[in-house]
Each structure stands twice: as structure tokens, then as C-alpha cells.
């Protein structure tokens, strides 16, 4: 997304002059070198590996550098069922990632608990504790679906502004980049959800 006049740009390009803006260049670089965190939870992780492997090859989109350390990662792919024992670790890993950071919630379990929602030990969606950028439905989603989510994330990064009132959240100093880690209470994880992050859709019931 640029603020440069498209007509002027194409006219200059015809003369052999390539024009860009700082923001465009910066976002172009960022969106094509997203380093995901090498971190799988359950079944979806195998599809994540398949996406990185020979046939689907996420390297075509610049996302093949899976980093084992959260300190070097830009993207967390929450791939699989999040249990109540695992949720605090995931929030801690998210907190350890440097800004700007993004989250893809892969599969039904990471979105809402999926087929295991009725289980006593299953968290009903990781978006209760950390903000999620892209959701992929499916159980498990196909590698193509993960690639689609990756491209959606690239589009999202491309649209982020560096300056102005609507600039990207990670450039806003007041925006939190770490979130409280839930702990085990008497019955369940406490708090049950982070109210700053978790804004579920209000269900309108007609009388």
C-alpha cells in the first residue's frame, strides 16, 4: 500500500527510475522473511511440517526458517490442541518473542478447543490469552490452508502503517507486547481469559 501517485510511478518506471517509500520497502522486507517459531503441539504440527517439507515448501513465501528460540521468531503458529497445562507455557513463549510478532491459530483446537472442547483439560481457544492475527479452520487444516493463512498474514503486514494515527500496534508505545501468564487456580486456569485480548462475539438472541 503506497501513498505514491500510481500514474507518476509508472511514468518514472518507464524512464528506468524505481520509486518506493520507506514504508513499502520496510514492509516488503518484513513480509517476505517471516521466521516462524519451531513449535508444534499436536496433529496440526505434522501438517505444519508437511507445509515446510518437499511438496508444499513454505520457502516459496520466505517462511522456511523455523527458529527453535522464541527470541528469534516473528510468527507463532499455534498448531494443535492447547491444554490447560500447556497454555501458560504458550503465553510465556509469546511474551519472549520480540516485537513485531504475529500469531496464526491453526486448526479447530487452537481456535476453540475443536473436537476436544468438552474435555476438562482443554483450553477453549488460545485467543483467550494472546491476540491472534489469522485463524485457520480445519481438523487438521491442509498445508494449502496454512499457506493461505501465511499469505493473508503477509497481506496484513503489507498494510501496516509506520506513521500517523493508524500506525501499527507494535510501534505504539502504549500497546502491550506482553500478556499476563495464567496460573492454576483451585479449579481452572486463572484468569479464565484476558479481558484485554478476548472479545468474543456477542450472541444476539431473539425472543
Amino acid at each position: 500500500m503506497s501513498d505514491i501517485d500510481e500514474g507518476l510511478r509508472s511514468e518514472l518506471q518507464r524512464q528506468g527510475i524505481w520509486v518506493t517509500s520507506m514504508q513499502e520497502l520496510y514492509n516488503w522486507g518484513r513480509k517476505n522473511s517471516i521466521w516462524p517459531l519451531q513449535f508444534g503441539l499436536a496433529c496440526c504440527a505434522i501438517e505444519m511440517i508437511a507445509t515446510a517439507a518437499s511438496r508444499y515448501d513454505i520457502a516459496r513465501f520466505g517462511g522456511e526458517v523455523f527458529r527453535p528460540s522464541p527470541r528469534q521468531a516473528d510468527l507463532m503458529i499455534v498448531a494443535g490442541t492447547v491444554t490447560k497445562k500447556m497454555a501458560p507455557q504458550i503465553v510465556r513463549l509469546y511474551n519472549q518473542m520480540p516485537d513485531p510478532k504475529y500469531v496464526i491459530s491453526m486448526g479447530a483446537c487452537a481456535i476453540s478447543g475443536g473436537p476436544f472442547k468438552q474435555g476438562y483439560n482443554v483450553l477453549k481457544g488460545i485467543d483467550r490469552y494472546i491476540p491472534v492475527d489469522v485463524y485457520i479452520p480445519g481438523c487438521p487444516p491442509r498445508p494449502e490452508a496454512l499457506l493461505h493463512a501465511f499469505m493473508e498474514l503477509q497481506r496484513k503486514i503489507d498494510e501496516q502503517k509506520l506513521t500517523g494515527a493508524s500506525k501499527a500496534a507494535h510501534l505504539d508505545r502504549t500497546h502491550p507486547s506482553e500478556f499476563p501468564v495464567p496460573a492454576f487456580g483451585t479449579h481452572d486456569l486463572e484468569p479464565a481469559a484476558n479481558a484485554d485480548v478476548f472479545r468474543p462475539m456477542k450472541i444476539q438472541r431473539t425472543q
Partner: protein
Amino acid sequence: MTTTIQTLEPAERPLQIMSSRLEGELLEVSMGPQHPSTHGVFRMNVALDGEIVRKLKPVFGYLHRNHEKIGESTSYLGSMPYTDRLDYFCSMTNNWAYALSVEKLADIEVPERAEYLRIILAELTRLQNHASLLGFLLSDMGAWGTPLMYAFREREKILDLFESLSGSRMMCDYMRFGGCRVDASADWLAQAKKIVERFPKFLDEFEKLIVENEILIARTQHVGKLSAELAISAGITGPMLRACGVNYDIRKVDGYGIYPRFKFRIPLGEHGDTYDRLMMRALEMRESIAILKQAFEQIPAGPVMNPKVKIRAFRPPVGEAYGRIEAPKGELGFYLISDGSPNPYRYRVRPPSFINLTILEDLCLGHTVADVMVILGSVDIVMGEVDR
């Protein structure tokens, strides 16, 4: 992440040029649940003396998703998709083990063609499980990328077969008690035959990569030795048990399905070390190919589902049954207790990888921390099955 510090016995204390205060103290390291090669959300608390493992405590439960409890509140048919998600590499064999238990419970017969299809799918599952295991194991050893890419190239071909038959790549949900859900077309069988015939080429290539590889031999031979006595007393099954030289394969012992009709050999190891466990998988794949080739020749025409079984409103008689099969990872069994209602009264899974994992400490003691990853990889675990 270091916490407790313990001291060693004075006799074990190594003479090193270090400050006397640090000498011989154990360092406790927590590996996992987020670790590049723990095969899922598995955690090990390791006490290290330098690089040598002195103590190892596995921590489970990071993927406990209440499989058995959900199984008790779901109908018999409703549990079938959940079994896919136990060992998510081998959904077909999980389906078969569960279907076998229910068939035992309710005394259901399976048509001939369905038995053949089950064997074809189970052996294809074994091929893709062992192939990807070898890929992961080599990537744990530092061969990052290449072997895994080869393994996944072959795995994708088999997943294509699963997808065209059942509609899903990984979570096939294909078998039913009393047969299989849909019939395989002649085209599908021809395609499967083609893939199986080409598979030995991949195996030759892959074995060339691993068998005489100096680095691999140095990393795996005499590492993580398991004695036959310990393996038997701990209830280890599958390729891990056979790597110690114990001839025990449920396909031969029980002869479930129609396995007695097939000619195949059981590869056995000698030393029970990581190298033997690794080679066991490579040799088993060759035998799977032999079974598959026989099955493609013998498969008869006919129905794939027993028409007498009502799978939807299914109520087995009161009783209990234990059905087990030789899954790629070992003995996979389901124990079902029926009280005559649509849900099982008790639903218990005997997961091979959980029980194979119980001796991890015995395998790792005295080895370096880098070997722990290789030993863990050779045990072949899937957390969905370990924690359930």
C-alpha cells in the same frame, strides 16, 4: 533454566581444572515442552554432570486431551474419529485396533475384501510412519532437512492414496466395525500398486544414506542399549522389542485379520541399541512391501461392509473385550467394557509409545545430552498417544 544443585559421590568426581566450588555438581536442565526435537510437547528434567546424563525424569500431560473420558460419553461410532487423533501419524491402524475391539465385543464378522483393504491400509501406514520416523531421527542427529524432505516426499504419495479413498489426508476415519466405510476402486488399487512398486527405490536411496554413514554409526551404535530382559519386563513392544532380539510380533502371535495367509519375515536386531532400532524400521518397510504385493494379487471382489451391523444405533451386548494389533509403534490395544448402553462403560487405550517411553531413563543414563535426543527419536513417540 537451572534450579537444584546436587553433589556427586566423591569417587565419581572428575578431576578437572575448575574452581573447587563447582566441581562435580549436577546441573538440572528442563528440556521441553518447547524444544526443537522433543517430538511434541514432551518435557524431560535432566540432571547433568558436565554433558553426561545422571538422572532423567520425563514429565507428561502437556497434551492430555481426555480421550478416554470423552470415549465414555460418546457412542461407539462417535469414538472412531477420536481414535484418528491418538497417534496422528497412523490413523488407519488406530481405526483398525478400535474396530477390532468392538468386533470382538459384539461378535461381528468382517467381509473378506474389507480384511484385505485393512491390511493394505495398515501396511501403507507402516511405510509412511517408518519413513517419516527415519527422517525425523536423522534430523535430530543434525542432518537438518535433506532426509526429512526425502521421507516426506514419499509420505505425501501415500497420503494422497488415503485422501482419495477416505477424503482426508491424516484423519482418515475409514474403518467401521464390520468392515470399511467405502470400497476402493480398481483405479485406486492400481495407483496404490504403482506407488508400492516404486517404494523400494526410495528405500535403496535412503538406506544408502544411512546404513554406512560414518556419522550415523558413531552417533547410534552402542548408544541407548536395551537388554531383552528389561524390555520384556517393562512391556516394551513393537520394533523396539524386536531390536533386542525378541521375536514377538502380534501379526504372527495373534494372527488377527487374515495375516496368517501372508508370507513375511520378522526382522530381529541383535544389540538393542539405537542403530538396531533404526535399521529395524528400514527392514520392516521391506517386509510391508512384501505383504502389500501379496495383498494386491489376492484381493477378491465383494462387499466391504457387513450388512447386518447397525453402526448408528449400535448397542453391543454386556461384556468386555480387548482387541490389539501390531501398530507401527508397537502393541496398540483397546479395552472396552459394555453395560449394554450406546456408550462404553469403560474405554481404555493401551498406547505403545507411552509404554515404550517408560524406560527412557534406563536408556539415557551415562550418555551425553546430545544422545538423549537421538534415543528419544528412536523410541518413536507421538504425544497424542502418550498423553491421550
